[in-house]
């Protein structure tokens, strides 16, 4: 009963959030200066041309009217037509989504790996010079934003020591006969190292740039949580049984220290996804973020709306997954 009420409440808040996002974006992009129609037309176009096109895209109607028309379409799965490319927004956006998801997930995996190793190493050598060095490293990683890390990485591993690709998602001359747009997942599942190695070579630097700040957060928070757990009685009791430091950290402390870290990682992961917008631009990576910047530059209103709504849906989904994971990992919630 309680569970059902919680689920209903959750769905309701999600719906309200999405509507709120839609309204705000709708209003803001129409209030900021810049006329999409004027930008589409060649310099010699007449006022009549402008009026005709404005009416075609429904931009002559009042704001509430425009919103209702748009929202009515959305309820039928129609997010409108992109002004610049004249293709359905939904198709354009879904086409790019996999690229961004793959980049974000790769960044998350890298962040968890680096952050995890940092936290475990820091816990093992707590209160020593090594821990102090780790704290300093984390501080540096955190105080430089992801796009600056992107520039630094481009300089280091794209220019000075060119071991990775710094532009695009895949080498275009490769045989690109993908069924889905999840290039990385698909090429791994199909056992095509020629493809996935090339993809990773393209994705590594941008995902690393996205991952560095998050890995510092994971490293710091998980280390703190582990250190607090290491003082608890059950950890001490396990030492008296004959277990050494590694076992005690991994088996006794880690499972309990992960929980407080998890919620935070969820929130931070949504920030990371937000970071893809600039990082994709920086690395000319053909994902949603790059599409979003083009849409904003061209004042492609329907496309901007579609992309923002999609990002909002992704953020909500991430939060939902985190809550579910929390429930699964916490035995106290698992067994009422």
């Amino acid at each position, binding site marked *: 009963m309680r569970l059902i009420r919680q689920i209903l409440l959750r769905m309701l808040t999600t719906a309200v959030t999405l509507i709120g996002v839609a309204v705000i974006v709708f209003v803001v992009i129409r209030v900021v200066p810049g006329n999409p129609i004027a930008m589409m037309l060649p310099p010699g176009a007449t006022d009549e041309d402008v009026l005709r096109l404005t009416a075609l895209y429904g931009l002559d109607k009042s704001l509430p009217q425009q919103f209702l028309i748009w929202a009515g379409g959305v309820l039928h799965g129609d997010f409108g037509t992109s002004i610049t490319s004249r293709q359905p927004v939904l198709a354009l956006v879904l086409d790019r989504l996999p690229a961004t998801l793959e980049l974000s997930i790769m960044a998350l995996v890298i962040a968890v790996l680096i952050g995890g190793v940092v936290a475990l190493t820091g816990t093992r050598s707590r209160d020593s010079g090594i821990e102090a060095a780790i704290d300093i490293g984390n501080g540096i990683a955190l105080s430089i934003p992801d796009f600056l890390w992107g520039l630094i990485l481009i300089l280091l591993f794209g220019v000075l020591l060119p071991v990775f690709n710094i532009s695009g998602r895949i080498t275009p001359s490769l045989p690109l006969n993908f069924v889905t747009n999840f290039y990385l997942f698909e090429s791994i599942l199909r056992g095509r190292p020629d493809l996935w190695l090339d993809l990773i070579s393209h994705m590594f630097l941008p995902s690393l740039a996205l991952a560095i700040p998050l890995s510092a957060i994971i490293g710091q928070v998980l280390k703190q949580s582990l250190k607090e757990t290491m003082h608890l009685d*059950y950890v001490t009791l396990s030492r008296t*049984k004959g277990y050494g430091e590694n076992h005690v950290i991994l088996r006794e402390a880690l499972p309990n220290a992960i929980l407080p870290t998890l919620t935070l990682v969820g929130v931070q992961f949504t920030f990371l996804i937000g970071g893809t917008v600039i990082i994709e631009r920086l690395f000319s990576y053909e994902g949603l973020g790059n599409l979003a910047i083009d849409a904003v530059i061209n004042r492609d209103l329907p496309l901007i709306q579609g992309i923002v709504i999609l990002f909002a849906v992704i953020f909500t989904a991430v939060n939902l997954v985190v809550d579910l994971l929390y429930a699964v990992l916490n035995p106290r919630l698992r067994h009422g």
Partner: protein
Amino acid sequence: MSFLTIRNLSAELKGHGVPLLRRVSLQVAAGEVRGLVGESGAGKSMIGKAILGILPRAVAITGGEILLDGVDLLQLPPAQRRRRIGASAALIPQDPLTALNPSRRIGGQITDRLVDILGWQRARAEARARELLAEVQIAEPERVLRSYPHELSGGMRQRILIASAFAAEPRLIVADEPTTALDVTVQKQILKLIQAMQARHGTALLFVTHDLGVVSKVCQKLSVLYAGMVVEDTEVRPFFAGPKHAYSAALLAATPKYTDPAASLQPVPEAVIEAVRREVADADRRAGHG
């Protein structure tokens, strides 16, 4: 030969030189129960932790020996010391609510030492766990072994911790105020249980408490600690007839009597504290000179 022999064990707070244990000596023979009493902060738990190799990082042992079965633990390399302690000693902790890992099932927390440290077959260890739960009078052992700690009451968890402590047939058990965190109604049962288990298994038991009433019921030997120093080491029966040291006598006078719980309690007199402080200072000076 006593199973546990501590000789002149000294420990201090690292970097500060603050002594926490002052040339502590005590022995516990197989089948014997020794009480370790003293006021809060006297260092009772420190001694238990030193034996079990779980001293806080801030505390360093500065001298002495801890012999388990004649082998000085302090001379062994860490891995070997841990194994030896795990195989022959065990702890019954103070607070059953915090001493079990909340994310692991009870069964694994009883059998882990048997399987990982002592190399038992898993099936044999599980059979042993069921047997132990029956021994500590837990009904439905199967269900309990599959449970997580939060599904069980405090008294139940303390029974489990006792079972777990006896799992590997240790020759020494350190019980650090094993009943203080429990309901008064449960305290007596748990005390009886520890006593019965100790007697049946013939284990040496070091019983840390500041309740002399409990000492009179459970222990045969007694060490009285003040500021990390043993001020009296004695048999329990003569102690209650008439303690030798003025501080122990004052401590005894400060304990409520079961025969007359309403009798007014005497706080330890200032003069006695002064005297025992001087004694500690003298001992420090002698130790400093040689």
